[in-house]
């Protein structure tokens, strides 16, 4: 029985239990981060190695000028996200953020369909003049292009 242990030993037991739980939590977190975290993709990443259709990802890039179409239901939008190297068609049903416009940056959360269209559940656009999705911070099409070319080379 632990209760017969000397206080010093009980303290060691408690310490061991706490350490095991915390290390367990750390390992669990590390494992989950490897497998569960929704990773950030730019169109060039998808062209190079598309993620499996079940995997939730974030797709970021620029909304291609002239690509934005509203479907007849009035609430579905289709557009193309590009990064200068590749393009991904995106479909989203919902109310688009007020600063979502062609030629501007966007991060779409969702999954890549089997037909290559990205189905977004959520759009994070430039929220106001000070907010930008972290992944797109300081990103212009030219910079995206450089980034992508640097990774491809």
């Amino acid at each position, binding site marked *: 029985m632990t209760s017969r242990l000397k206080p010093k030993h009980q303290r060691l037991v408690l310490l061991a239990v706490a350490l095991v739980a*915390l290390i367990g939590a750390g390992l669990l*977190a590390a494992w989950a981060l490897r497998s569960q975290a929704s990773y950030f993709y730019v169109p060039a990443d998808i062209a190079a190695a598309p993620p499996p259709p079940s995997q939730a990802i974030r797709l970021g890039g620029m909304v291609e000028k002239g690509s934005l179409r509203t479907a007849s239901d009035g609430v579905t939008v289709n557009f193309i996200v590009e990064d200068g190297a590749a393009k991904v068609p995106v479909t989203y049903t919902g109310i688009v953020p007020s*600063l979502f416009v062609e030629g501007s940056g966007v991060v779409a959360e969702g999954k890549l369909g089997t037909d290559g269209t990205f189905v977004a559940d959520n759009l994070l656009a430039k929220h*106001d003049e000070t907010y930008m999705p972290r992944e797109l911070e300081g990103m212009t099409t030219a910079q995206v292009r450089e980034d992508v070319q640097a990774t491809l080379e």
Partner: protein
Amino acid sequence: MMAEIGLAALWLAAALALLQLAAGWAGARDPEAPIAALVRPVAVLQGGLCVVAFLALIYVFAVTDLSVKLVAANSHSMKPFIYKVTGAWGNHEGSMLLWITVMALAGGLIAIIERRLPERTMLATLGAQGFVALGFYAFLLLSSNPFERLAQPPAQGNGMNPLLQDPGMAFHPPTLYVGYVGVSVAFSFAVGALLTRAVTPDFARVMRPWVLGAWIFLTLGITAGSYWAYYELGWGGWWFWDPVENAALMPWLAATALLHSASVLAARDALRVWTIMLGVVAFSMSMIGTFLVRSGILTSVHAFAVDPERGSFILALLTIYIGGALVVFALRAGHIAEGKRFAPLSREGALVVNNVALSAILGIVLVGTLYPLLTEAFGVRVSVGPPYFNPVSAIFLLPMLAVLCVGPLLRWRRDEFARIRLPMLIVAGIGLAVLIAVWLVGGIAILPLLGLATAAAVAVASILPLRGRRLTRTPLPVWGMVLAHLGMGVALFGMASDTAFQQERLVAAGVGDTVEVGPWTATLDGIAPVAGPNWTAMQARMHVRYRGGDAQLAQPQSRSFWAPPQETSEVALVTRWNGQLYVAIGNEAQGQGDSGGEAGRWQLRLWWKPFVTFIWLGGLLIALGGVLALTGRVAGDIRRREKVRRIGERRAELRELAA
């Protein structure tokens, strides 16, 4: 003139903080040293000066003194008066001034009322407080001066972020800050006790009200912040696992653990080192929270008033405080005498499990929050969101809630399983019954299913400690525990119910169209422009009916502010006891083009959210539980003090008689 008065008060207060540190340090070594007598008055004076500075800031905002840089950058003469006042802390500099003011006031309060601790520990505590405050004064005066003047005042200010022009957001940050600062006071107590090795049940009793107070404010702040995000951002969610939300959640988790371990220390003189450790961790979490929110290292939907240049300053403070505290801890922890022992099956045993689980969840949230920052340093951009946080934290949350059902029924020191077998069977039976019933309904994901079952079990179990007690004689802290635990069950029920049963409709509706969502029908009667003090909006007029009942009015708006130019969504909420109808309006539908839709239709998003209000009701119950516990403890302390006084008087009388 007002700005100069504020700045002068701030410099004086900073000088006093330095004096407080020096005098506290000297006093901790020798309480009889003449300089030690200065500590208490200096702490009180410092609090007063901060109040002067803060009032000066409110004044320059209230009169929109545009020659002050901060006002010009964050305010506008056409803003409603209430937001001129709240604008004083709706920005980086002002909120840091608010932080230091609350902290200095807390120091003054300790100096006035706290007489139970050994004098040396008390002086060391106030010295530590001066040390923490000093860093913030340096930060404020050297890199974030709120009173800086402009050589050329602009004709109009920049305006305030419209998302902040909301009653919820006006009072949410101060609430959280009071919580953060309360945690920093607990940290000062921990450092004081470490330095003088006086880690005793008395120390826990002195620290506990401060932890309780901080915890109440953190709970209220998180609850209010969640409700604000729910109705103001227009996306219908109540928790995003956003880094800024996590920044408030992490100190709350640590404070919750600290609260429970301080109870063990106060009641049973066990978990001494662990309690001190949690005091250090809780403060570290509120510092990391400040760092995340204020440094500009991350951009979040809620991160306001950020500036990357200040990041390094806060990071330096963070390193000094956390590193310093850990060094003191490492040097001193070995000298703290052992606490009392206890059996695994006891109240303490359950609280140890609670503490370990809370720490594990804290670790998981911390890792998930910092991981993207870490990978970004190596050029990899990663997003960590609900797919990580929900299941991984649930792995520790569910067993913790199971222990929450058992713990309050156990006796201190040691207990027999047979004594709690019956209540445990009842609770487990109820949980299992709910699990099976909901599972039979079908179509529900595993986490909400487990959540509903656990919520039922927790709610029932939380009331069981009242069994066999005379309710009128039950001490307030017991009521507090019962209510807070019940609140956990209620909030969990709201979260699970909303996740499992919410229904959503997204349509483009013309005037006269009727939309159905769940048991509701909503008819769009018209859309018209409306104007406010500093915005214009398109407002929909709708009547909504619950199961064909009476018509109620819902008027969602899409607002456009002009200073700064930004659009916000003002949703319409129709609240019933069993949930909320949530209506947001989007843009005018661009139906023309390829498939020939007609114009004059508006995007409407409707949600039926069963029992969603229970999330915040639960949060309020948790906070109310804290208030009851705090009231009970403080009243108990006052009674005890009175008793000691009377015994002293009686003794003096007897001595007189004997003489």
